[in-house]
């Protein structure tokens, strides 16, 4: 199911934790759907991400994508970091099962929100703008059609 690299990051996630007095904080997801990610970044004077840490409640893919996205983002400018796509994250991990692609969205969304938080705090324009999964009232099921949801499960 998961690639070796996903399992490696899941078993040994990098950059777990919270940066105290972070320059940017992003929190996305919803416990109702079982995925919550919080990312904190430290940014230097040239907009480069010096440090980045995450905390994630979620499945193997959620933790692995969080971990890899922190590795990818470290050293990047916030502008570049906000551009990391879900596909890049998945590729970096050697692929994700289709049903797990939304986990890499969570990871990139978390990073985007943290970057925007940093920019807005400094009175600058946000890059990504409102992110659905960062709204605490976000209903994860609103867009799913029933049929699909039902058919995915394989109860044993």
């Amino acid at each position, binding site marked *: 199911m998961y690639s070796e690299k996903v399992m490696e990051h899941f*078993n040994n996630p990098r950059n777990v934790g919270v940066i105290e007095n972070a320059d940017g904080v992003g929190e996305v997801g919803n416990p109702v759907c079982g995925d919550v990610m919080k990312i904190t970044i430290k940014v230097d004077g040239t907009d480069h991400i010096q440090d980045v840490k995450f905390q994630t409640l*979620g499945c193997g893919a959620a*933790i692995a994508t969080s971990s890899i996205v922190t590795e990818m983002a470290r050293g990047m400018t916030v502008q570049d970091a906000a551009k990391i796509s879900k596909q890049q994250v998945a590729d970096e991990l050697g692929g994700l099962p289709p049903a797990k692609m939304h986990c890499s969205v969570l990871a990139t969304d978390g990073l985007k929100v943290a970057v925007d938080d940093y920019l807005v705090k400094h009175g600058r324009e946000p890059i990504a703008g409102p992110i659905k999964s960062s709204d605490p009232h976000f209903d994860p099921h609103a867009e799913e059609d029933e049929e699909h949801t039902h058919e995915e499960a394989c109860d044993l």
Partner: protein
Amino acid sequence: MMNGMDRTFYMDYAATTPVDPRVTEAMLPYLTEHFGNPNSLYTLGRDGYRALEAARERMASGIGAQPTEFVFTGCGTESDNEAVVCISQMVAERKNRRHLMVSAFEHHAVLHPAEWLAKNGFELTVLKPRKDGIIHAEDLQAVLREDTALVSVMAANNEIGTIQPLKDLADATHAVGAYFHTDAVQALGKIPFDVADLGVDAASFSAHKIYGPKGVGGLYLKKGTPFRPLLMGGGQEMKRRSGTQNVAGAVAFAKALELMLDEQDQEAVRLSALRDRIVDGVLNGIVNTRLNGGPPKLPGYANLIMLGCEGEAMLLQLDNKGIAVSTGSACSSGSLEPSHVLLSIGCPAEEAHGSLRVTLGRFTTDEDVDYFLEVLPPIVARLRSMNPLYERMYGAVK
């Protein structure tokens, strides 16, 4: 083994079971030496026929039925589909009853055919169990109708293990003139199950849950129950299920049931005690944990919630340590919704994502339980420490 462990601590007996060596031994000759088609007239075929019919007799007597009331099928899912679709359609045709009632925590092998019928001429009521994970007869009575054709309530639930009051449910069903089917896939062999005592009209079984092979099922159809075959063809199984019979599989199923029944009493005691150790160990040893459903429950079944942990992550971490369990988390199934069973008993989604189903069985030892209770707490602690909401929702991680 991929997990690098010398052995697997298998604790997912509700998902499937290894074939017992005694069962393998019983079935093997019917793959090789006695391979005849049981419908063939020559000696080799008649040998197969005799083995098949002996297996049918043993299955039937094991559930308190007549041999002619027991049909071998290709899996539990097939039996469920046959019961739900074919009985309902025939009752509708003969008695013009077009209402169905199934419980909300049925296996999808019952729920999906019922939903399909609801799109094809039937009206469907889905009845929620109460918080204890039981369908109570009075709740059923309240939704039964004059035109109810079939009621389907499982004998014991596959995720939380709760045992349903089948006799009362069947009586209530018969009181309105409807037929009663039960999915007994999980219950068979683990608790007393006698179709005559219970008064059910149809029941589904599957061999791979009781140390038999996958791909072998059974369907009890009480004499006189309206039915049409779902699989049409050569007319095997007294015209109720066509297809060359899997003689080896039938022999295996009968042997597997025999062993379950022989060992039922002592296993019930042993597995209940082991399960209680797990439940007590978790509830007392780890804060913010809960137990779902019951009593009464199948021996060896526990469904536990570790608040603030996601199930798939726990499952994979346990797998790293060689422990095999399952979870009702959404992530584990690739769907967005957590277990429909846990939701049906009122478990909030955010808690259901943290559920672990631990089901013990024939090869579970005391040491397995010790090991599980040793390995689980640090995994829970670690995952909670990574959960950005844990402190906010539940207080400091201990």
